[in-house]
């Protein structure tokens, strides 16, 4: 089976996010004066082959722990998992 997985990576709670602060500071100049607590994270989207969804999730968790996020400063969360057409088939079509 093939899956498309979206992982969200964000700075740990309590760790100052200067990027979020800059965005927050810019919003009032556009008229939105009621916004606070802005934090900026990132989404990593990937596709992988795995026997089933549980295996796909387990692999993404391991990749996130070891590489996609840094546990010293970040947390991660699997935001979405969807089954897609087999990767090998789509690869064949492309070649």
């Amino acid at each position, binding site marked *: 089976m093939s899956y498309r997985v979206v992982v969200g990576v964000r*700075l740990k709670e309590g*760790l*100052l*996010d*200067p*990027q979020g602060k*800059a965005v927050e500071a810019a919003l009032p100049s556009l008229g939105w004066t009621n916004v606070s607590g802005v934090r900026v994270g990132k989404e990593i989207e990937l596709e992988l082959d795995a026997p089933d969804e549980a295996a796909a999730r387990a692999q993404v968790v391991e990749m996130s722990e070891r590489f996609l996020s*840094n546990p*010293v*400063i970040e947390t991660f969360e699997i935001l979405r998992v969807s089954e897609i057409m087999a990767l090998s088939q789509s690869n064949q079509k492309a070649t």
Partner: protein
Amino acid sequence: MSEPRPRIGVVTFPGSLDDRDALRAVALMGAEPVSVWHAHRSLGDADAVILPGGFSYGDYLRTGAIARFAPAMESVAAFAAAGGPVLGICNGFQILCEAGLLPGALVRNKGLAFVCRWLTIRVENGEAGGHESSGNLTIGRRGELLSVPIKHGEGRFVASPDTLERLEGDGRVAFRYASPGGEVSEDFNPNGSTASIAGVWNEAGNVLGLMPHPEHAVDPDLGPTGGQPILQWLLSAARARVPA
């Protein structure tokens, strides 16, 4: 020849910028510079290794996150584990943190801006553990001030409260940002680093990482020479490994 000339390896990653300055600086200090390529496992029989500054792999994902998987880094990790002296400068510091060879992490500067200027750092522990041994195996006495440049956008040192407590307790904070007179305060903290930390030692005291650039501060014709004592430590540690 009175003293052996140690070989100092400088690793070049795709996107390294200060590898040539580091090679030149160690040559000026009397060592033999050795270029090390990131894709090779060989450290060129180096007696010490520098991970230089720059933007390896474009700083993609996180600073240092991709460089840590370079083949040369496997050798650097093994070299460090065997007691080999390793100095990580700026991006090199970030790589060492990502590789788990140094504690903590370096994140976006508090003020968001890229900071590029000369400043003063204060020696906290000239060698790991807060000893003040005689001889060259120390960077300097506690409180000694060094004039060095910084140039980074992601140099804010952070670590968990437990890690910070251990670093402070074990005498592993190497440098703090300070005023020209040696005062440590938020006014002289250029990037929002926790406790103004500018550099840290590993537990064994053979791996040092710092955000300032000692390799840009060695030639008296070009400005202050605050980088000399730091590179001198590396050279002395390397010499100690050269068979007589």
